[in-house]
Each structure stands twice: as structure tokens, then as C-alpha cells.
């Protein structure tokens, strides 16, 4: 680990080993890494940049939010999409990898928040895990609106149920919770709970709707955006997000942004399906 300890959280390159790796939902795995450096310093909403395989024909790292951190361990909740996440899903206990972290801005918890609403779609649940526990630990009332295509693809249900006072679910096919989009539940919860702040992560079109719902009610809203990333540390300018302040880098100026700053639809986010 080439991580200096002379100042507050610096990013380090940390050799980590896989302690557990299991399927937790349809096409979703949970990887637990022994990563003492990052586990100590990470804040909710930050991410790590993981090198899944050496000697493979794919060379770039993959960014993953830290879902939870406890002791010297971090948990990563990942969806199996392409060559990298497939390789991760096949990695076995004891496998060694390395990662860079903690990276990015993380969620900010404004002073005096009494009630927070977390809105997640699909794997958007990943970066909201630590936040839910942290808010609950601070005595903030937490509501969660969670969406997924079907019940089998809901993740982190127990975590949210334990941390939240209200945990409402929407699925596209109605196999759990309300049938329909999670934005129906988020809107209802904004009206019901009048939260001080809304945190959201998920497909960008969903985040945009949630941001608009919050804006209409004058509620502060933070979004977490995904971009293709090469360096993860602010050097390569591959991960830009169009904002009212110009092009910002999702890896260092984000991934968490104040929703009011985002110029939606200027960029293509990686989930787009044309």
C-alpha cells in the first residue's frame, strides 16, 4: 500500500484481497474486500477504482461505489454487465486485486438535517448503503424509495429496511411493492415526509426526474452520476459532466453533484441503450 498517513484522507493504491464474493440478486454480486486503508478513510458516496485482472486483454480499472465499510473491510455491490464485472463475478475468495481509493466527493450531509429521502433505482442502491446507515446513526429520519425491474433484482433490502423509517419499493412488473417507476414513490414520499434533502442514484433519466421533483418543492438534492472513467483521479478528462460551472470531472468533482448544477442531457451517460 503506497498510502501516506501524514494528512487527512489521501488516495492510495491498495493491494486488497477478496474475503467473500456471492450472488445477492439476479445478475448482482456482493464482493467483500480486506482493504484496511480505504476502509478507514472512505466516506459514503465515494468510490474505488478496481483493477480486476492483470494480464487480461482489458486493461482499464472499473469504478465501484463502496456500499458499506466496516472494520478493515469494504463491500462492493456490482452488476454483471461486461467483461470486467464478469471476471469479478468469477473471482474466488483469496483472490488478490488492487484498487485506488477513496475517490470522489461523496455525499454531503448538511448541518441540521432532520429528514432525508434516498431514492435509488437498480444498482443505484450501491452508493446509498453507507449513507443510509450513517444518517440513521446520526438520528436523521431516513426514507427510502427503491426501484428495480423485478423483485429478483432488488438489492440491499435488509440494509434499507433496517436503516429507514419508511422503505417503499416499486418494481416494473409489480413483483414487489408498487407496480411502476420508483419516481411515483419518490414524489409521494417528498410530499408525505417533506425531507430536508434528497439523495439519489440510479439511471440518469430517473435521477433527472427525482431532481426535478425535489426542485419543484425547493428541496436540496444530490445526485451521483456515472461516467466512463480512465484515470479516476482527475487527470484524463474522460469523465466530464456538463454543469452550470462548465465541464466538471465526475471522478474528483463528483460523482456526487448538487442536482441544481447539472445541465441534464448534454452528455451521454454510460447506461444509455439508444
Amino acid at each position, binding site marked *: 500500500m503506497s498510502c501516506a498517513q501524514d494528512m487527512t484522507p489521501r*488516495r492510495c493504491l491498495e493491494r486488497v484481497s477478496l474475503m467473500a464474493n456471492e450472488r445477492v440478486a439476479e445478475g448482482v454480486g456482493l464482493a467483500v474486500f480486506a482493504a484496511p486503508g480505504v476502509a478507514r478513510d472512505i466516506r459514503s458516496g465515494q468510490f474505488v477504482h478496481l483493477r480486476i485482472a492483470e494480464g487480461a486483454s482489458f486493461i*482499464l480499472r472499473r469504478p465501484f461505489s463502496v456500499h458499506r465499510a466496516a472494520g478493515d473491510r469494504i463491500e462492493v455491490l456490482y452488476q454483471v454487465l461486461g467483461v470486467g464485472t464478469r471476471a469479478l463475478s468469477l473471482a474466488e475468495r483469496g483472490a488478490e486485486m488492487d484498487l485506488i481509493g477513496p475517490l470522489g466527493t461523496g455525499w454531503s450531509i448538511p448541518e441540521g438535517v432532520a429528514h432525508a429521502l434516498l431514492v435509488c433505482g437498480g444498482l443505484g442502491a450501491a452508493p446509498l448503503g453507507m449513507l443510509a446507515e450513517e444518517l440513521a446513526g446520526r438520528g436523521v429520519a431516513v426514507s427510502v424509495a427503491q426501484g428495480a425491474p423485478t423483485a429478483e433484482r432488488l438489492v440491499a433490502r435488509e440494509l434499507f429496511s433496517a436503516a429507514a423509517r419508511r422503505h417503499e419499493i416499486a418494481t416494473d412488473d409489480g413483483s414487489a411493492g408498487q407496480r411502476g417507476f420508483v419516481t411515483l414513490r419518490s414524489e409521494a414520499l417528498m410530499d408525505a415526509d417533506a425531507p430536508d434533502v434528497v439523495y439519489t442514484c440510479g439511471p440518469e433519466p430517473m435521477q433527472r426526474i427525482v431532481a426535478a421533483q425535489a426542485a419543484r418543492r425547493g428541496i436540496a438534492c444530490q445526485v451521483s452520476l456515472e461516467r466512463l472513467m480512465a484515470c479516476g*483521479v482527475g*487527470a484524463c478528462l*474522460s469523465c466530464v459532466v456538463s454543469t452550470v460551472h462548465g465541464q466538471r470531472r465526475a471522478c474528483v468533482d463528483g460523482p456526487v453533484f448538487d442536482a441544481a448544477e447539472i445541465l441534464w442531457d448534454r452528455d*451521454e451517460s454510460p447506461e444509455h441503450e439508444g
Partner: protein
Amino acid sequence: MSHDVDMRVRIGSLELRNPVMTASGTFGSGREYADFVDLALLGAVVTKGVGLEPWPGNPAPRIAETDSGMLNSIGLQNPGVEAFCAADLAWLRTQDVPVVVNVIGHTVAEYAAVAARLSREDGVDALEVNISCPNVDEGGMAFGTSCAAAAEVTRAVREVTTLPVIVKLSPNVGEIAPIARAVTDEGADAVSLINTLLGMAIDTRTFRTVLARGVGGLSGPAIKPVALRMVWEVASAVAVPIIGMGGIMTGEDAAEFMLAGASAVAVGTANFVDPTATTKVADGLRRFCAERGIAAVRELTGAART
């Protein structure tokens, strides 16, 4: 390291502690990697491209992964030379490392203006004139694919600066040696190569190019054989030092480039793979020499034979 290897190399009047530099655009201004790399261990930091005014860069997506490589179409996003001097350069001046600024322009006059402006600043040790960026419509590669245009840019920069001038060449040409000769005839102190190869990727889900701009620049280990061949060709065509790059991941890769004719090397895409790549390459290169009883790394330059 048991054996002591003389790692110093010269690029024109510039003396470097060791031959390992950063490749422009892949290391920010060095600050972004300062958590991982002690910059004093590098031969030089080469900054991202700096233009006269701010450049917005290209729309996203700006990168795509390919087998053993990646495509980028960043498009030379930069805040302009004034902002660069005020922020990046001011910081770099405080660091114990030579600074090479990568210079870009939409026109010959802009290249010259940026070069002139930078020559008035402390803490700039050399200029790398980028006539080879494949990611912008005007400026960039257009200057690097014709001998006449390459010569013109070099001449204009040469006239306004006494700093060492390195010209960065494009691999997207039929023959690279004539371009190298054209720029050294105009007084370039060194050439660096290669910039990225023009490439593209198509998303088979969406039937759209992965990069918003369509085409982009290919870098990484995939292009190393092409880069080595071009260094080899240029080495037999010009007498000035060559800075070799393209897919360098290890000290052995760096040694290959030096054997092919390079006096120094630059590490680009490897930084994304491993943020400590630059110093690992430098260590590996030192070890490579030590294990073979090579007293000075510069002995590697051009030592390969068929």
C-alpha cells in the same frame, strides 16, 4: 539496487535525471498523481496540451476500451495558457522536476503565441509542440501529417523561443521519417512519438459509435509494435534525440524503445492502469541495466540490431 546505473539522459540542452517522462494528457499537470508518485523521481512531467484560449474539448463519451488499449477523444480540453500559468504551472514550479509544456493551436500563429507566452514564464524547461492530436477538426493532426505544415509550425515556434523544442509526431502518416526530417530541419531539438493512432469502436447494442465524436485516438499496449517501428525508422532518419512512447507498461517496454533508438520515453495509458506506473517503469529500467551490467542507461539508445 546493488549496481549503480547512471540514469541521466540529455534531450537537447535539457538534462533529465532519468529517461522516464509522463505522456501529455495522461498525467494532468502532475498534481493529480502527486498522492501516488514522488515527482522528483521522474525525468520530466509533460503537461496536457495548452492552447491560447480555453478549449472546451469534445462531447462525452470520450473514451472506449479496446483489446489491450483504449480510444480517447478528449479533444484537448484545456483552460488556456493564462489559467495554466496561474494554476498548474505555479504549482509545478514548486516541484523538483523538469516541466515540459505540451503546446497546441488552431493556427500556426496560436502555436507561436502560446510558445512565446510560456517562454516568458519561469519553470518551463521545454516545449512539446503537439502537431499530432487526432481528436480535433482544426489544429492538431492536420499540422502533423504534411511535411510543409509540420515545418511551418516548428519554424514559427522556433522563432519565438530559446527553450528546447520537442515536436510530437503523428503516427497517422504513410511515412514518418520525412516529417521528422522536416521538423528537425527547422530546428526542432528533439522529436517525440507516437501520438495516438486514429481508431473507432461501435456499440453493437445501439449501432452507434462508442465515442460521441465517432473516431478517437488509440493508445496502450496494442500500439506498442507500431510505435517501436516508427521510433526505429525515425532513429535512422534524424540525429536529434527521440522521446519514445506508445504502450509502455514496464521497464522492459521502456528498454525496447531505447534499444529501437529513443533517448527517453514517456508513459501514458499505463498511468490509468497503475497510478504508480511511471516510477515502476523507471525502477524497472534501472534494474534492467543493473542486471546486465550496463553502466549508463543511455548506452541502450539505438543498440538493437536485426
